[in-house]
């Protein structure tokens, strides 16, 4: 191919190019490393005469420049056209995204992490106690002897082998006291069981969270501190709480903890049953006999226990109307978290 033909062909191809990608191909074919122009340039040394070599070089370079200019011009033209097309195109950005496959952790798992974080910042350590428990750890050592009328507070499920399905997480108390030395700061978030028929507000399987703190000079003041700190973290800084006398055989004094209804702020509404307050937690100072049962001298140390039901707390906080949703595995529930 001679220079003239090469020029004509290149300019024609440039003119024909209808897209930027086409044009890039044309450029490579003509001005690329192995393109026509370089091919022609590489043939120059084969010309016998110095004069011809010079003429040919000048000619080829001027063609190269022409092609270069034509490419640039065409490039500008195509980009302009392209921009117009991009501008003119339409796309429905409201169309839903392509869903990735996303699962979910259970609301109780998410809440557990929150609760654990809150109390671990205060130096509490997570502990565990058996679900299938000896009577003495669930009751006897907590000041609830067999046959005692105070057992009416707990409708208990028993195994054939005589063990109880623990009715509260408090079975960890004496276990932990016996294997630790004060100061003891432990917490547990786990399942408990009661003899209850299932309905929107009752479940034979439910969750409790409980902290136990044993140290010198543990008082109702500190109970108030811990209680307020946590309830504000869950229900909001504005949350107001109050203590009421409440009987649990393993604490003295024992208190019920109420939180002001977050929906009506105490005025009374359907959610709080017109009470204005929710009973949200139970607590007290560890009974001296329970401390003794745990091998701790109540003359030197005192302790507090504070606990609540995460299912119930979530029901209030999120407006879940039926406790059974937590335990049925319905995707319409699970996928909301």
């Amino acid at each position, binding site marked *: 191919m001679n220079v003239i033909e090469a020029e004509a062909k290149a300019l024609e191809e440039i003119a024909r190019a209808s897209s930027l990608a086409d044009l890039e191909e044309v450029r490579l074919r003509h001005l690329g490393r192995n393109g026509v122009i370089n091919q022609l340039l590489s043939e120059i040394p084969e010309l016998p005469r110095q004069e011809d070599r010079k003429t040919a070089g000048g000619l080829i370079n001027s063609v190269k420049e022409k092609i270069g200019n034509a490419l640039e011009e065409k490039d500008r033209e195509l980009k302009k056209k392209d921009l117009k097309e991009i501008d003119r195109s339409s796309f429905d950005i409201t169309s839903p995204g392509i869903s990735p*496959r*996303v*699962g*979910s*952790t*259970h609301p109780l*798992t998410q809440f557990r*992490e929150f609760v654990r974080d809150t109390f671990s910042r*205060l*130096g*509490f*350590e*997570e502990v*565990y106690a058996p*679900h*299938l428990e000896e009577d003495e750890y669930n009751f006897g050592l907590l000041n609830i002897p067999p046959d*005692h*009328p*105070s057992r*009416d507070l707990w409708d208990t*499920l*028993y*195994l*054939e082998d*005589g063990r109880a399905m623990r009715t509260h997480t408090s079975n960890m108390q004496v276990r932990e006291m016996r294997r630790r030395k004060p*100061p003891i*700061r432990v917490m547990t978030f786990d*399942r408990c069981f009661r*003899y209850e028929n299932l309905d929107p507000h009752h479940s*034979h*399987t439910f969750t409790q969270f409980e902290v136990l*703190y044993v*140290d010198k000079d543990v*008082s*109702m*003041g*500190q109970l*108030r*501190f*811990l209680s307020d700190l946590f309830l504000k973290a869950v229900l909001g800084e504005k949350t107001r709480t*109050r*203590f*009421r*006398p*409440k*009987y649990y*055989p393993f604490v*003295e*004094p*024992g208190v*019920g903890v109420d939180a002001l209804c977050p929906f009506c702020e105490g005025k009374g509404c359907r959610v709080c049953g017109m009470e204005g307050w929710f009973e949200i937690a139970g607590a007290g100072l560890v*009974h*001296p006999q329970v401390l003794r049962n745990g091998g701790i001298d109540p003359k030197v140390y005192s302790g507090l226990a504070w606990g609540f039901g995460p299912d119930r707390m979530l029901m209030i906080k999120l407006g879940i109307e039926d406790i059974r949703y937590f335990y*049925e*595995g*319905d*995707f*319409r529930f*699970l*996928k909301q978290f």
Partner: protein
Amino acid sequence: MLIPYSWLKEFVNLRKPIEQVAADLSLAVIGVAGIKKTGGEQVLDLDVTYNRGDLLSVVGVARELAALYGTAIKGHPEKFQPPDSLSQLAVKNDVKLSKLYTLTKISKLSYKITPKQISSRLDAAGMRSVNLWADLTNYVMLEWGQPFHAFDAEKVARRDSTLSIEIRPAKRGEKIKTLDGLDRQLSTEDIVIADRRGPIAIAGVMGGEDTEVDEGTTEILLEAAIFDPLSIRRTARRLGLRSEASSRFEHYLSPDNLYTSLNKILKLYQVYGKGVVSGFASVGEKNIEPYSVGLTHEKLARVAGEAIPLLKARAYLERLGFKVMSSEKGLLCWPPHFRGDIRIPEDAAEEVLRLHGYENILAKPIQTTLEEVRENKLESGRDRTTSLLADLGFSEAKTYPFVSTFSLMHLQTKKLLRLKNPISIEAEYLRPSLLFSLLEVAKRNMARRKEGRIFELEKIYPKKGENLALGVLIWGEENSFLTLKGVLEALGDKANLKLEFGHAKKEEFFHPVKFAEVRVGSEQIGIIGTVHPHLARAFDLPESAFFEIDFERLARLFQPWRAFESIPTYPEIIEDYSFVLPQTRSLADLIFEVRAASPLVREIELKDRFETKSGERSITLRITFQSPEKSLSAEDVKPIREKINRVIQKSGGTIRS
């Protein structure tokens, strides 16, 4: 306990509206379940707890309100003082069974209908009006907390004219026909009131039919007693006869209060029944030994978290009826006779705080010695696992710990832990695995989702001991075994653990060949398998796969970090190897051999696999060759390529051209 407001006002001046009184009670005394309206009467519904048996009475609640408002209780009821001239009844008692037993004979009674004032109050308090004689016992019980039982004295005399009453344990085989007309078989644990012919009442629980008072009764033997609480409780529970009376007997009762209420009821029998007291007997401890509880200033401050002046504390206690003496160290307190629950200094401190007001206890930050709280591997493992599975599209379920009757059809009950008192047949056995719990969740969701991914991290209860397990199930996805295996491998990778899969002994719930045990080193930590097609079908499920891991073991093995591998700088050469491998030959073994073929094999990726119905497997491995020292040339790779082809053939593969 239902307490008509007007009744309460007979004993304490209340100027506040009932709502305010209810709120005050709930903040300082006892839980209030609500305020009811019954027949124009406002009624407080109280949740009386075991420790406060004294509040199972109108007077008891009035005493608390008087203490709360700093006022006095109205009226000074006197204790019954039997005149010396009164004839003695023959009563034999054992103080172990009945701490105090009194029997009063009332004669010359003439019946009339129960006055409206009394029957409407009984009604408001939730008790049915029966006849005047029984109504008066219930009325005074509600007012004073002391239960009574009225025997028709003539009917008793007709059985045994000697009228010798004995409180004793029931004899083996003894029976009684109770007021409700039923024949009751008694146990030797029961306490009975008996004459020489046998029981005439089950103590504290129910009277006998043949000594029942009625409109024709003209002479009554009135029993007021304090029985052994635990025995009454056991008997009432066993016979299913818990009543207002029996539940009061389960609590602490005061002899003082018994005599006061006896005085009151005898007056009512005189006023409404024209009766005359004609005989009396009292056997047992007429007074309780007074005891004191010391409350030091330090103890009070330690409970409250702040100093409460002793003078104030003393005033609170005195308002509550305590006798208090101040000493150098603090207070010596004698609880009032009606309080059986004050035993230790903390009890007295609670009384002070209640009246001081819990709202006045200020939050006090914790001051303590900080010690190291070590990382809890179970919890960090739990966090990683649940979030990884959620990221991989799994939803976390939480299910009940029981095996449903539907699942039970597939399990052998003798291998399961059974409850002694199941709530229902749906909650009789404890689950030995998460498999059936998750199959049920899948079944429940199938109507709306033909495929799904779920997991649960919860306790299982095999006979050998409870255990925290991770169960994961997928249903409706193709190639479910390998898909789930990939998930498990990803979990192992996050934990920096090399999981190994080995052939496991067949298990009935899993596909006979798509089933493996999962190991870390030589430790078995779980199983993985395709759910047996018949089992899946029983749950209306398509192809499903499941794995279960002993999570406590897995968490213990979790490695939080692994050493960094340098990123090679020399260029790599990538080649694909395609071959056919029968299912009977192990692809894992083949890959292992290929890797061992040369140190220059840096990475092996399973690029493609295709399985035909006949079970033939086409495999493409993408192998990356790379040297840490130089750029590889075609000559370097050639001998390795030949070796790899030989290894593939030796491992059972047929190279595809």
